[in-house]
């Protein structure tokens, strides 16, 4: 009796599994066919350029560097002859990047974005550290809504804020979002090396 019942149950199970026969496949042939990534998908970090001038939107404020939990972003922003900061070096280490998107949230100038691109494996580890030019090149395909532009008419004396990044900082930042408080600006004024120390330590920790 028991054997017969077991047999019936096994056949019933096969019947349920059999219902799924002949259904269309849910997998895709990856290298040939590609999945369309959702708009919000967080892929590699890129730098955005101004749609008209083609210059980088970045104002070298280093907010993204401080927001990064893994110290993947490295910025050199020395002061030029006119005492304004300019972007000398901007590197993203994609080996450290954890794709959390906090840098994009921190940015007030539409300068950094996560593209939907996910294929960037290389044979050489050092190729994963991307410099300013490569990040800008990758960012050219990324479409974005320029929220920064709308703010500009409010600050008439600095219509060319995008091309002169350092100049725009004191005026545009409080106008764009309410949450940039004096403390942030005070931190910005600090020496770059002193703010770098805590996150730099943890970066080393993870290397080991």
């Amino acid at each position, binding site marked *: 009796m028991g054997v017969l019942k077991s047999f019936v149950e096994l056949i019933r199970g096969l019947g349920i599994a059999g219902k799924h026969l002949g259904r269309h496949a849910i997998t895709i042939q990856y290298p040939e066919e590609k999945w369309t990534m959702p708009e919000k998908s967080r892929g590699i970090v890129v730098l955005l350029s101004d749609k008209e001038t083609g210059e980088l939107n970045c104002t070298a404020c280093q907010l993204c560097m401080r927001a990064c939990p893994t110290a993947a972003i490295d910025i050199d922003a020395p002061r030029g002859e006119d005492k304004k900061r300019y972007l000398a070096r901007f590197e993203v280490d994609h080996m450290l990047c954890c794709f959390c998107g*906090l840098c994009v949230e921190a940015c007030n100038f539409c300068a950094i974005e996560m593209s939907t691109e996910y294929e960037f494996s290389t044979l050489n580890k050092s190729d994963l550290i991307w410099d300013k030019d490569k990040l800008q090149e990758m960012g050219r395909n990324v479409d974005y809504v320029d929220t920064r532009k709308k703010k500009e008419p409010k600050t008439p004396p600095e219509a060319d804020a995008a091309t002169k990044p350092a100049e725009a900082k004191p005026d545009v930042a409080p106008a764009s979002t309410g949450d940039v408080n004096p403390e942030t600006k005070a931190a910005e004024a600090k020496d770059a090396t002193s703010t770098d120390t805590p996150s730099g330590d943890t970066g080393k920790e993870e290397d080991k």
Partner: protein
Amino acid sequence: MGDLRTEEFVVNMGPVHPSTHGVCRLMLTMNGEQIVDAEPVIGYLHRAIEKICENRTYPQCIPMMDRFEYVTAMSTNELFCLATERLAEVEVPERAEYIRVIMLELNRIASHLIFYGTTAMDCGALTPFLWGLRERELIIDLFEETCGQRLTYNYFRIGGVANDLPIDFVPKCRSALDVIEGKMSDYTGILNNNPIWLARLKGIGTAEADHALAWGVTGPVLRACGVAHDLRKDDPYSIYDRFDFEVPIAQEGDCYARYLVRLEEIRQSIKIVRQALDGLPEGETRTKIKANFKPPAGEIYTRIENSRGEMGIYIQSNGDKKPLRVKLRGGSYNQLQFLPEIVRGKGYLIADLVAIFATFDVILPEVDR
């Protein structure tokens, strides 16, 4: 012939073994084919997440929490944000609370679908694994459209959620729930009466309620012993007290009871998500906090109900922008600790141990942290 003798010997199961769901080493003392004792050796997946959090600002800790328990990363997000919000007394907007509950329960369904698939696979049935992961994919796609990632979401923020739901989220979510609910009859139909499945799970790994409570076991493992302990009911956090759902329990305490409890929990979670979608209000999704967020000095312990039991966090703050001390508690840790108690001296085979381990639904990142 007089020289023949028998002795116990030790078998190492793991650290890399497909049925240990991560890297766990079990040192099994064997008497022939029967297990005399089992000793878990942990720490292979230790990443010092608690220590890393001490070097990060509060918002920076949330991506680290994703790595604490990556099968239900939404619940770890909720855990940290809830604790910090209670510490700093940050209000969460109504819509954000609803979005959080939707995400948490969808994540619980996804986690239980993985449980369903992997447990069946550990017991030799491959079809349920493919089915479980296929339906989980629907939920993961919803998450990807909402927050941009499939596993490490980093979606909750202190004071709300990172961004609002996409426009077509509600209809998509409803249809995904309908699909999963429709498949439930297939899930139970293929396994519940299957003679091999019953022989592998029924009467195996029986736990007593008192014994489990004494070892701090929580979640579905405890509920399968007949204790209706669920933090969503007993110590409601977020807005769980507004929803109508049941806490499924079973009396037997064996592997089969744990399996039934988890499947029933999927149904209850579907019920909660439907109610939350119906009641989803319009409005803000995030309370702005200061860019340089510093909670007041103090300490807090917060706990939530994860798909693996009570998950807790202890945060000590000295008023700085970084936490002074973070301690995490995962349900899996206690369950792994409880495993030798279940196995010891019962004469189970290694195949039975695999079934017990699978139905405990231990995942090792939560144990090692």
